[in-house]
């Protein structure tokens, strides 16, 4: 370091914008916020804020209840059921991560514990066929106790240690589920078959709520919806209570919370147990509908997907849990079909451009440039190498014929697709370094590149593309909008 000769001059404070002493940013921007509320959109916003939150949740429940009325399509109801399961999972994780601010990376182990617990107590595996109304409380309480036990050794440690201990615990559980077909006590006894190992536990009983047998998909959908609404109510009430406020203060500043006399350790344990109990409950529902459980459903990818839902919706926000699970799960389902996925990809791309590129003049330049560059590249490359247009796009119709003429589809896209994928990642990273007109101009080739990679590589491997997108969601959201879609930004006192 050279002794500070390149220290930039301190900029003069802008009198109008600088916060006054003793006034935080939020108060200082009061006038600005008032002006934003003008006009029709502002009016609607203001009115919506007056509606109490529970009304939103209730209207979601009512709307969801009509889903099986409108459609008989088993696939759609199945996706609805899965989405409800994810909502429950995200709700439980929201308590641990969103309220208490503890990073729990073993969360899906509790989900698996619930599922295997139900499967063991209600299947021919051990000849047990308990009543569902008895199993659910047993499994929920057992999950909560397990949660306490996991959190116990790490309760005094920093969040990072908790993360690693819970991650290990989750991995340990997956190992046990996978190899549970010959568990012996310290190698001394013969091996007992507990979890069925790679074969899982088949032939699990359906739910039987005090004589009311639930075997149809619709029945499970409504059961899951009722359980979710009840869980939501409980979590809402807890959030409003003394404990909920204590959790939030713990999240914001554990040290200050402790100094204020809050029982920090106990609060952490309770949050952990609460989250684990909800995950266990979700597991019983999962096992009840699928009538078979396998260890692969409770591994890291599921964990990351639930995290992505929570982060997208906004950690700490109940509406965010609903929205995040809905958006992520439905888009993951849509991505399974290449034709639908391609539509979604271009619609999202166009919408992002529409929202992010201003003023309109630039939007026209970027859109026109992208189209022009695509056609130009297509014309030049295809005349030089005819094999570069030998492939097929995955959608039909107008969009398909447009893409066929605009994006190159090589006959053998694997290798060139892989190389352009890496270039695309670098190009997108490079975009974040540029500003203003440079960034907008650089967008044009990047979008063309993205279309090429999408058409030739990503859409061909939907199962990997889904997971890559989940990773991207986590990184981008944390950097750009850590509060998620519905969460409220932290108010920093100046």
């Amino acid at each position: 370091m050279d002794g500070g000769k390149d220290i930039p001059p301190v900029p003069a404070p802008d009198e109008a914008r600088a916060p006054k002493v003793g006034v935080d940013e939020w108060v200082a921007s009061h006038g600005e916020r008032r002006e934003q509320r003008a006009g029709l959109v502002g009016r609607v916003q203001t009115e919506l804020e007056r509606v109490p939150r529970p009304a939103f949740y209730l209207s979601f429940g009512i709307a969801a209840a009509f889903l099986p009325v409108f459609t008989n399509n088993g696939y759609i109801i199945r996706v609805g059921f899965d989405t409800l399961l994810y909502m429950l999972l995200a709700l439980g994780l929201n308590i641990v991560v969103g309220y208490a601010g503890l990073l729990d990376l073993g969360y899906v182990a509790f989900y698996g514990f619930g599922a295997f617990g139900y499967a063991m107590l209600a299947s021919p595996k051990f000849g047990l066929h308990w009543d569902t109304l008895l199993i659910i409380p047993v499994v929920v309480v057992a999950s909560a106790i397990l949660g306490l036990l996991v959190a116990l050794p790490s309760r005094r440690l920093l969040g990072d240690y908790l993360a690693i201990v819970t991650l290990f615990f989750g991995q340990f559980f997956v190992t046990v589920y996978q190899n549970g077909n010959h568990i012996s006590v310290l190698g001394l006894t013969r091996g007992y078959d507990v979890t069925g190992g790679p074969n899982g536990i088949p032939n699990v009983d359906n739910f039987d709520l005090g004589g009311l047998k639930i075997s149809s998909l619709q029945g499970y959908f409504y059961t899951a919806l009722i359980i979710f609404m009840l869980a939501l109510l409980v979590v809402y009430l807890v959030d409003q209570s003394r404990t909920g406020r204590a959790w939030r203060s713990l999240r914001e500043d554990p040290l200050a919370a402790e100094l204020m006399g809050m029982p920090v350790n106990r609060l952490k344990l309770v949050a952990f147990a609460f989250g684990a109990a909800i995950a266990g409950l979700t597991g019983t529902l999962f096992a009840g509908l699928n009538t078979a459980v396998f260890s692969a459903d409770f591994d890291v990818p599921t964990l990351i997907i639930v995290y992505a839902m929570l982060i997208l919706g906004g950690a700490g926000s109940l509406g965010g849990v609903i929205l995040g699970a809905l958006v992520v799960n439905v888009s993951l389902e849509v991505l399974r079909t290449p034709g639908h996925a391609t539509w979604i990809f271009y619609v999202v791309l166009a919408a992002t451009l529409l929202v992010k590129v201003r003023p309109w003049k630039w939007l026209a330049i970027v859109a026109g440039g992208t189209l022009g560059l695509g056609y130009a590249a297509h014309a030049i490359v295809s005349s030089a190498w005819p094999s570069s247009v030998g492939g097929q796009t995955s959608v039909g119709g107008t969009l398909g014929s447009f893409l066929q003429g605009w994006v190159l589809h090589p006959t053998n896209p694997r290798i060139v697709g892989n190389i352009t994928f890496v270039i695309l990642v670098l190009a997108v990273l490079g975009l974040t370094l540029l500003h203003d007109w440079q960034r907008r101009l650089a967008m044009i080739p990047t979008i063309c590149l993205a279309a090429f990679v999408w058409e030739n590589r990503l859409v061909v491997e939907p199962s990997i593309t889904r997971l890559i997108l989940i990773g991207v969601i986590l990184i981008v959201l944390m950097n750009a909008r850590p509060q998620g879609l519905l969460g409220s930004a932290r108010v920093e006192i100046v």
Partner: protein
Amino acid sequence: MNWNLFVTELTAGITHGCVYALIALGYSMVYGILKLLNFAHGDIYMVGSFIGLGIINGFGGATNVHINVVLMLFLMFAAAMLGGGLLGVMIERFAYRRLRSAPRIAPLITALGVSFFLENAAQLILGAQQQSYNSFSWPSSPIALNGFVLPAQVHVSYAQIIVVAGTIVLVIALTLFVQRTQTGKAMRAVSFDREAAAMMGIDVDHVIVVTFFIGSALAGAAGVFNCISYQQVFPTMGFQAGLFAFTAAVVGGIGNLPGSVLGGLLIGLAEAFSIGYISSTFSQAIVFAILIAVMLVRPSGLLGRAVVQKV
């Protein structure tokens, strides 16, 4: 007592422990400076081993290498360390830098996302199947077979010797760098108190970039080491290795470089002996038990000092 099994597991444990120690060093350095648990570190190790594989394949494949083997080993390490280091610097620049003053949980979740992204991008590009690595010849038969015999009929391969010797060289070089150079001094200062270091005129951004580069380069080298002696590469290999290496760093005392090496060797030995004597499927559980035990008895690790938190 079966000495053959014991010595075999001992050598395997030391070899594997060296790999964990190298990964743990990077974890520890990054943690010491940013207080960030870099989950993506294990995936840098994976990328490093694939770069090594690419070099072997680039020079005619494992069976008929058409350049000098020593030169090729050097090229593999140079490429893997450079590639790993650059990847680490990119991750820091684009994923973590903006989150330095964010609540602690934000960079952790980002790190999770980066790790997930790298793993799946590697699967997209390289395929999910295991690829086989080594068995290039030196001097006459494959280095994993060629070697010498210890007492009790235990075979030690050249590959294992390369791993241990290479680790020792890298650890000494790192120690000299951190203790003797100007940049190393700056790194220690930033790790001690970032704000005070910045006020003393240390370019904190620069120091963090250097830290990420060195730590990730060590992980890249560890990737090549692991594959020379264990011969399998696959995109998800970084996850468990990262987990074990982090445990090694915690056991040794996170932020403490000799501690990381000690912890790495300890975890490698624990894993090897549990595979040899107890059960191969539950070696992870045993490492987990060690972690819990250390955290209960000595939360600051074997060589770490307890930190008094100041407000």
